[in-house]
């Protein structure tokens, strides 16, 4: 196995090797002024620059000129330095001037408390964004045809046109409704109250009327609808009738879920799980962990373990500026949950302060193993996967 045998002295360059295999992401190092210090294949693929061309140049070359001029880059670096991370989405520029939509995470690298540089993780979202927009467009078009009811009423409220969407919503066919009064779609008590007539009068007076309320299908069942009534007038202002648009509001829920999914994806982005080897996952934890991020990280990792049936997971915490007891506790819970699933964990990049925090918690380390560097962690992981199952589970009962 090439990886296990490789002897690379410099920790960062080893990391670099691993990163070279990542083509979906760009993971590069900047110095404290935002000058590019390291480069890899994924970054080249994304931006078209070769290492010779880009190392030593300012990160602002990736930003659209107007953004770079506005001091955006400096601002992002400052936010990263002051708050421990800066996450953003926006247009980025390739060597040939073309732009792509990217999400970017900037995290400061500290040495003895001073910021000596930054790690920049970027991902091209263009394709996904376009797919999402396309999906959205198609969905809305479909909706317009089948999920909206768009019908025409005459000035007295009698139905004059019907649509497929209306059939779907209310179950009536065209013949069953043409020439009937619009109140046939209202709940009994509303009909008695003369609600339909009042709504039409309001629409005529105000130029438009929108409401939400119960409406009734052919089979008598009710649905909560959003209804808009707009008067149609001829050139002299004489009222000819109304256009009525109605929609079943259960749909709103689906929209909300779409937004939720997009939010999830962004969160997921900031904690990418990388498969470095068959059955071995690496979770490079970068930046500060708040409780929401920590919970996402655990959920994402455990789901990924189940999906890939990963036998070992390396939690690389060298990129976390500070590990307090809450975070340490959370990491150990994640390790224990992974163990319950049948997966061994190896911590990598534990700093002295972190070790103190963990030990002070008085937590039984159990099957948890830890290695100084990612290289050693990977070597151990390879041993575990290649070895017997007993090595995977040192506590034999």
């Amino acid at each position: 196995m090439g990886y296990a045998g490789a002897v690379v002295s410099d920790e960062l360059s080893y990391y670099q090797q691993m990163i070279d295999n990542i083509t979906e992401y760009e993971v590069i190092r900047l110095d404290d002024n935002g000058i590019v210090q390291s480069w890899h294949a994924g970054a080249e693929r994304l931006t078209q620059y070769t290492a010779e061309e880009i190392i030593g140049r300012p990160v602002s070359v990736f930003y659209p000129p107007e953004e770079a001029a506005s001091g955006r880059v400096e601002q992002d670096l400052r936010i990263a330095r002051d708050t421990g991370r800066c996450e953003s989405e926006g247009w980025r520029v390739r060597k040939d001037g073309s732009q792509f939509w990217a999400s970017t995470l900037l995290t400061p690298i500290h040495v003895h408390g001073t910021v000596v540089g930054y790690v920049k993780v970027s991902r091209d979202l263009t394709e996904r964004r376009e797919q999402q927009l396309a999906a959205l467009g198609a969905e809305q078009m479909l909706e317009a045809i089948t999920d909206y009811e768009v019908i025409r009423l005459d000035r007295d409220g009698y139905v004059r046109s019907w649509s497929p969407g209306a059939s779907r919503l209310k179950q009536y066919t065209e013949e069953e409704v043409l020439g009937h009064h619009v109140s046939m779609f209202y709940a009994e008590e509303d009909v008695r109250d003369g609600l339909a007539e009042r709504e039409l009068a309001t629409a005529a007076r105000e130029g438009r009327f929108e409401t939400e309320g119960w409406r009734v299908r052919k089979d008598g069942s009710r649905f909560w609808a959003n209804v808009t009534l707009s008067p149609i007038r001829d050139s002299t202002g004489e009222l000819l009738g109304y256009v009525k648009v109605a929609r079943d509001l259960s749909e709103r829920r689906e929209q909300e879920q779409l937004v939720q999914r997009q939010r999830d994806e962004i969160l997921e982005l900031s904690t990418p799980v990388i498969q470095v080897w068959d059955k071995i996952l690496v979770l490079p934890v970068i930046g500060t962990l708040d409780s929401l991020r920590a919970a996402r990280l655990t959920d994402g990792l455990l789901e990924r373990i189940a999906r890939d049936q990963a036998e070992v997971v390396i939690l690389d915490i060298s990129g976390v500026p500070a590990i307090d007891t809450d975070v340490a506790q959370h990491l150990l819970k994640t390790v224990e949950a992974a163990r319950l699933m049948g997966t061994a964990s190896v911590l990598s990049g534990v700093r002295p302060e972190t070790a103190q925090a963990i030990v002070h918690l008085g937590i039984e380390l159990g099957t948890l193993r830890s290695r100084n560097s990612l290289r050693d962690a990977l070597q151990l992981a390879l041993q575990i996967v290649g070895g017997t199952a007993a090595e995977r589970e040192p506590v034999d009962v």
Partner: protein
Amino acid sequence: MSDDIPILRLGPNLMVTLQGNLEDTTVEHIERAVTHEVARTRATGLLIDVSGLSIVDSFVARVIARLVAMVRLLGARSTIVGIQPAVAITLVELGVPMSHVRTALNAEQGMALLREPTGR
């Protein structure tokens, strides 16, 4: 009633599958049936497949842990396989002591674990 408890014989090992929304009495019933079956067949290993459980509360977890302990007294080893991700983190938060149970991702790896020499 032990007919409806799916206990499978695989060489020297037994495999029991827990699934669905289980009543407490059913869980205890399975516990008894499996213990008897291990003793009767002199199995050396027991695989407990819980991949079909979408929740494991402290009661079910305790019965499983107890089953592992009893089976061990009967001279056999147990491995729990297929704990769902959400169930795993829930068990940890709940605080159920599970450090003495051996686990594996799936039945295949669980079997491999059972095949290995005890080392003790």
